[in-house]
């Protein structure tokens, strides 16, 4: 009984960590620009598929991973520079539609270059399951969790302790006042898109050995990450992390105890409930606790 529960929990927190990273990406761009970036899922896909591609070129794993993150970050910068920045002054809705367009383009490019097949990225340190209290966990899950924890702390440090991080928060709070401080808000926007893209890519690379990846892999991961961000209160970084965990665990429990065919529905049911009862998200958007 307990072993079974633990098994579902392990798979839940692994998924949850991935959604948390994707949700953080949504939050960072939302904070800087008030845009919901619907191409966030495609950053996740590019991370996984990019790694597959660079591995195929014969590059060693660590290099392939770094190259995939760099490639995705470039796409993030490109999205801001080529699609968001030129639309300066357009309404937020217009910008959101632009990101939807960008996501379709990125998916299309991936399909043309890499085909429709599913690909596996080899696990970082083997496939030998580790036994814990009767349940098992894959080494790759530990990678997912470890890297996520590290990134969350790194981001907290960046936003809480560095002037550049504070400048990004200041820009999100009051763009005009940020300009008066001499903050280059255009650069802040640019950096935010790059940072979100990198986070998305890392999430995609971390789960690719567990879930397989193809050109469409970003759609579901993007949506779940979006649910995580909304659950936590859009723009609240730590909320997105908690939201990701909730979505991941609920999904794993739903699949385990209920019907696995409906596991994807769990996230959407959760989000409907939250939006209905607490539209600002479970953790709202309060105080200084923002990543």
């Amino acid at each position, binding site marked *: 009984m307990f072993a079974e529960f633990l098994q579902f929990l392990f798979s839940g927190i692994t998924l949850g960590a991935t959604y948390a990273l994707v949700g953080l990406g949504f939050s960072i761009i939302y904070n800087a620009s008030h845009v919901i970036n619907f191409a966030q899922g495609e950053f996740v896909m590019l991370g996984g598929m990019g790694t597959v591609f660079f591995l195929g070129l014969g590059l060693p794993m660590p290099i392939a991973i770094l190259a995939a993150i760099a490639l995705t970050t470039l796409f993030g910068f490109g999205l801001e520079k080529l699609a968001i920045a030129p639309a300066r002054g357009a309404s937020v809705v217009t910008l959101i539609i632009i990101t939807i367009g960008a996501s379709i383009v990125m998916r299309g490019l991936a399909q043309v270059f890499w085909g429709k097949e599913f690909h596996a990225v080899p696990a970082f340190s083997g496939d030998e399951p580790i036994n814990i209290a009767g349940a098992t966990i894959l080494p790759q899950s530990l990678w997912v969790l470890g890297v996520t924890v590290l990134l969350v702390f790194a981001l907290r440090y960046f936003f809480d302790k560095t002037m550049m991080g*504070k400048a990004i928060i200041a820009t999100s709070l009051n763009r005009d006042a940020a300009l*008066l*401080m*001499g903050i280059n808000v255009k650069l802040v926007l640019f950096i935010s898109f790059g940072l979100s893209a990198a986070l998305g890519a890392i999430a995609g690379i971390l789960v690719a050995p567990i879930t397989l990846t193809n050109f469409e892999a970003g759609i579901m991961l993007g949506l779940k990450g979006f649910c995580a961000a909304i659950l936590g209160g859009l723009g609240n970084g730590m909320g997105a992390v908690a939201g990701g965990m909730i979505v991941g665990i609920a999904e794993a429990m739903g699949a385990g105890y209920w019907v696995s065919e409906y596991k994807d529905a769990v996230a959407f049911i959760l989000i409907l409930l939250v939006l209905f009862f607490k539209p600002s998200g479970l953790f709202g958007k309060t105080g200084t606790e923002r990543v």
Partner: protein
Amino acid sequence: MLKIQNLTSHYGRIQALHGVDLEVNEGELVALVGGNGAGKTTLLRTISGLQDASGGSVSFEGNDITDMVANKRVGLDIAQVPEGRQVFTALSVEDNIRLGAFIQKDKARIATDLEKMYARFPILKEKRNQAAGTLSGGQQQMLAMARALMSRPRLLLLDEPSMGLSPVLVMEIFAIIEELKEQGVTIFLVEQNATAALRVADRGYVMETGKITLTGSGENLLNDETVKAAYLGI
């Protein structure tokens, strides 16, 4: 120091500034008074670069800065205390003040200036770790002022610093303005509180519907019959 020539500005198709000419000399305290919607805030925002000019020019120390982006103007030592304070509500009081020195790389100078601000505004020191949004209106005004002063401006643009403050705080703000003037800061002060502003000002301008309609020494404007009737409530 600051020279504005035939400046116009639009919000979409609505014209807010209709050819403004105005000058502020080094060391002066110049007041701009005018009623609601006259275009005072628009003029200040055009000077600091937050608002685009649609015609005319703004020059600072002989250089045309009409098209310079707002965040670069801080580097020229121009600072603005915007209308409605515009503090970063979710950030701490201290972070707000420090952001005022964002372009300053000299850490020692930042530390010295921060202590100076705390000495000048003790209430901010007391609340240094609180979120700025939790401060009262008056305290937020002090914060906006401290934040602007952190860049050691040579030209300080103030947009209605006394708005919504109690009489005691208004006096305090004006005392600070006079003190800054003593220290050699050039000040361009926008106020609805025309009496107080013209009293401390060397010179003043009166603005109506996007145009300068009257100019003179602070004293002359205070005694001007039309100004009295329209803005001083006498």
